[in-house]
């Protein structure tokens, strides 16, 4: 009896203290954020959808110590909820519901945590998404959304009192993202969105002068790189300020731009480093001081940073939140009387923080890491090391729970080891990762792991994030593959697997998945890299009564054990026909002699990899050369030697040389489908001894 009492007491004590033992933060809520607002009392109020899709209000006290959550109303599969204050300080609520191919936009007002004045704002055949609204000087409602119908995406604006309805732009599926609408001080209405016109994703705007909408124009200067994750706010001059992430050739940086009376200012970079700076959000402190907040991922450290503009001077970067390994998505900032509220999502949890602007000034500044990592062609990479790169599917999730020991990584490692000798497959899957994050960590992963081959399967989270176009996601994947090639790493890219969850059956997201896979299929031919059409392989799976759905776990997204085994086999089928790199065994400066003449040249000789299983799928060897003192990126192709011409020897005599120079050579094997294998070891050939 005494034992039972002691045991019961122990359980009670444990339950009481367990949150503290786990270090659980009391400002954490599980759910999906809608919008944050600051109350005049300095409370941070943020509306979010919980796991049951109910709309809830979380209120964080001004001292940031107590978070109260209360249920506002149960929603029926609502999408794109937006909450803003009108000029009477009433909380306006907009949302969309979808039923049988129809979409309905609703409005309501939240008063004392109760939803009132609920009414239909608009009905349309098709899928409405990415809703935003604003209130002009007359407190009239203006709403903008994307309508996906008839295989196209439309930017639609509607004004409530007049019930007028405009279509500003139309584009292919998934190529218009996150429109924003603002009313300026002169009651002009501005709509911004990112989309694709000619090149990559760009920032567009259209302006309503009271009579007509202007033709959509792009704001950014170039369309070579994607401009994504736009946010807009009315600035101190009463005109719009915009922030977005733009790829700069190495990673994503934050750019800011504002409207002046004469036109758009130049894009000004707010960041310049080698980390991915994403999800910018802009707010005006005291209504006149622009504050930009964004998230950054750097070597498994994720943080929220900010900069503000005082007078004509931008402040240093300040660290607002230092996170852990979990990515920080969509940090949202709101301000009221110099008090700053911050809400962000990380690992499907919502976290919140409030801070005074005065305290913000005292926050430590960051020192941007701008030291370029050395990119090496053909470093001493380990030929038996394969890097599995991607998201949770690569990491190994079953039924939305981590289980890396049952993923494709260990299974593939076993297959490779039994065929090629001891091999290692490194797990570089990061759950919830989108391609922009993946792009930022690729260089670091390649530097650390030193693997010769990389298996790239990522983009599943981009499909449902709905904040960037599929063109940009494919661009990010292409850039990742390019980085691999620059490193001498041989990437093998795959399409995304089909999904059997709710996202897989919503036409809009299903179309995004198809669009991304279509773009992924274009990458291998462009970069001459191998490819596995995992989508097709899964989709065409049929064993007895079982079809592709039998390869997925209960969550309909991640494969089950059978699926991971199947995936490992499909990876291996392609790896088996890799043009594995040859090994240069000799490189010497020699003279090619006839009886009465001779010429000096560099003779290199190599032998083929022992891993090659089939010879008839290769077309020949490419030989690359550079002068010893030149940079690693200076390798140039000097010869292509068809396999049919190489009877006895795998060798090349290079006579087109400057005899005073030393040269470095590397060789790669080329498949008949033009896929070039990784380069061999580098052989230095010097002057004739």
């Amino acid at each position: 009896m005494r034992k039972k009492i002691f045991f019961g007491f122990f359980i009670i004590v444990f339950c009481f203290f367990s949150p503290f033992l786990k270090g659980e933060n009391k400002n954490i809520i599980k759910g999906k954020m809608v919008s944050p607002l600051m109350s005049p009392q300095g409370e941070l109020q943020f509306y979010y959808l919980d796991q049951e899709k109910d709309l809830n209000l979380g209120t964080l006290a001004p001292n940031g110590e107590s978070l109260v959550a209360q249920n506002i109303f149960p929603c029926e599969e609502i999408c794109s909820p937006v909450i803003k204050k009108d000029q009477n300080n009433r909380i306006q609520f907009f949302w969309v519901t979808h039923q049988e191919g129809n979409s309905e936009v609703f409005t309501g007002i939240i008063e004392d945590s109760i939803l009132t004045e609920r009414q239909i704002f608009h009905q349309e055949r098709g899928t409405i998404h990415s809703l935003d609204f604003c209130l002009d000087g007359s407190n009239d409602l203006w709403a903008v959304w994307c309508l996906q119908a008839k295989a196209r995406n439309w930017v639609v604006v509607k004004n409530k009192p007049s019930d007028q309805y405009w279509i500003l732009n139309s584009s292919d599926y998934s190529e218009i993202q996150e429109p924003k609408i603002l009313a300026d001080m002169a009651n002009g209405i501005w709509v911004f969105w990112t989309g694709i016109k000619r090149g990559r994703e760009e920032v567009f705007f259209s302006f309503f002068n009271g009579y007509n909408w202007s033709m959509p124009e792009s704001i950014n200067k170039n369309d070579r790189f994607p401009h994504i994750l736009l946010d807009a706010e009315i600035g101190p001059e009463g005109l719009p300020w915009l922030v977005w992430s733009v790829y700069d050739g190495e990673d994503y940086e934050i750019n800011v731009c504002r409207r002046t009376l004469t036109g758009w200012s130049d894009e000004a970079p707010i960041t310049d480093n080698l980390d991915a700076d994403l999800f910018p959000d802009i707010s005006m402190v005291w209504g006149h001081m622009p504050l930009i907040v964004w998230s950054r991922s750097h070597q498994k450290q994720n943080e929220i940073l900010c900069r503000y503009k005082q007078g004509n001077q931008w402040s240093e970067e300040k660290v607002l939140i230092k996170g852990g390994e979990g990515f920080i998505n969509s940090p949202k900032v709101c301000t009221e009387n110099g008090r700053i509220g911050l809400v962000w999502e990380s690992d499907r949890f919502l976290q919140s923080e409030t801070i005074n602007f005065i305290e913000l000034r005292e926050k430590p500044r960051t020192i941007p890491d701008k030291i370029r990592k050395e990119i090496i062609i053909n470093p001493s990479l380990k030929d038996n090391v394969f890097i599995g790169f991607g998201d949770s599917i690569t990491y190994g999730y079953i039924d939305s729970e981590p289980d890396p020991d049952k993923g494709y990584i260990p299974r593939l490692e076993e297959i490779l080891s039994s065929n090629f000798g001891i091999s290692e497959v490194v797990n570089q899957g990061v759950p919830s990762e989108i391609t922009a994050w993946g792009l930022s960590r690729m260089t670091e992963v390649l530097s650390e792991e030193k693997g010769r081959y990389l298996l790239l399967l990522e983009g599943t989270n981009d499909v449902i994030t709905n904040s960037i176009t599929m063109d940009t996601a494919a661009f990010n994947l292409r850039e990742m593959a390019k980085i691999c090639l620059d490193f001498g790493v041989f990437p093998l890219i795959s399409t995304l697997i089909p999904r059997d969850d709710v996202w897989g059956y919503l036409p809009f997201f299903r179309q995004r998945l198809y669009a991304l896979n279509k773009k992924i299929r274009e990458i291998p031919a462009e970069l001459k890299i191998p490819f596995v059409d995992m989508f097709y392989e899964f989709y065409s799976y049929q064993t007895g009564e079982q079809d592709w759905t039998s390869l997925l776990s209960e969550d309909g997204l991640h494969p089950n054990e059978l699926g991971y085994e199947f995936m490992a086999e499909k990876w291996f089928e392609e790896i088996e026909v890799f043009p594995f790199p040859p090994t240069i065994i000799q490189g010497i400066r020699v003279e090619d002699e006839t009886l009465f003449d001779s010429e000096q040249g560099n003779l290199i000789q190599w032998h083929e990899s022992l891993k090659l299983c089939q010879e008839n799928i290769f077309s020949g060897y490419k030989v690359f050369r550079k002068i010893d003192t030149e940079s690693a990126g200076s390798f140039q192709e000097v010869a292509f030697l068809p396999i049919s011409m190489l009877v006895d020897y795998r060798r090349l005599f290079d006579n087109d040389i400057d005899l005073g120079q030393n040269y470095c050579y590397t060789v790669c094997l080329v498949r008949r489908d033009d896929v070039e294998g990784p380069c061999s070891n580098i052989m230095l050939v010097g002057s004739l001894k």
Partner: protein
Amino acid sequence: MKKFYQLFFCVGLTAFFILIMGEPSFAQSDEGTSQREQRLVRPKNTMAGMTIGSIHIASDRYKEIFENPSTATGIEASYLFFSKSHYLGFTFEVKCLSQAGHSTVTNQNTYFSLTPLTLTGKYMISLSDFIPYLGVGIDLFFYKEKSHLSLVSGSTPGFHMEGGIYYQPPLFDFIKIRAALRISRAMAKENDIKINLGGLEFGLGILYCFDI
């Protein structure tokens, strides 16, 4: 195969001489020993015929590029001065050698031809049907090489020593068969590359003998 044809040609030529020229000798066969003695005493003073030789060119570089030994075919003419069983003579000879080989590294084809003109002074001793001899002489080697690198041609003088033996088949006093071993030296220089085109040669010849 080429060598076989050359040998076949020589054998055929010999047979031809024997058949064409042999008939008078058969007719005179009854005369017996006195004629043989006469042959010993006074052979024909002129010989002309064809030769075939196997040449081992001395240059290591040559050996690396071309097949060695090489076969050369040619013609020769000799004139003899008599003094009892000792003769002095001189021989003029033209041969031709052509070879295909491969460059040392890239194995690209290279074609070489050599035409030596030789003049040899000979001392011969008549011993029954066999006439051994020793000789020295001078050469002029004409050469040409065509390769992916260049076309090179020229000439170079040389000298040689040789020893050999003539065989006079019985009944065929208008025929001699010659076997000889010759060593020669001829340095050619092109593109700062010196090559000894001489070497050791073993030759066979069939000669038609007549007086002029």
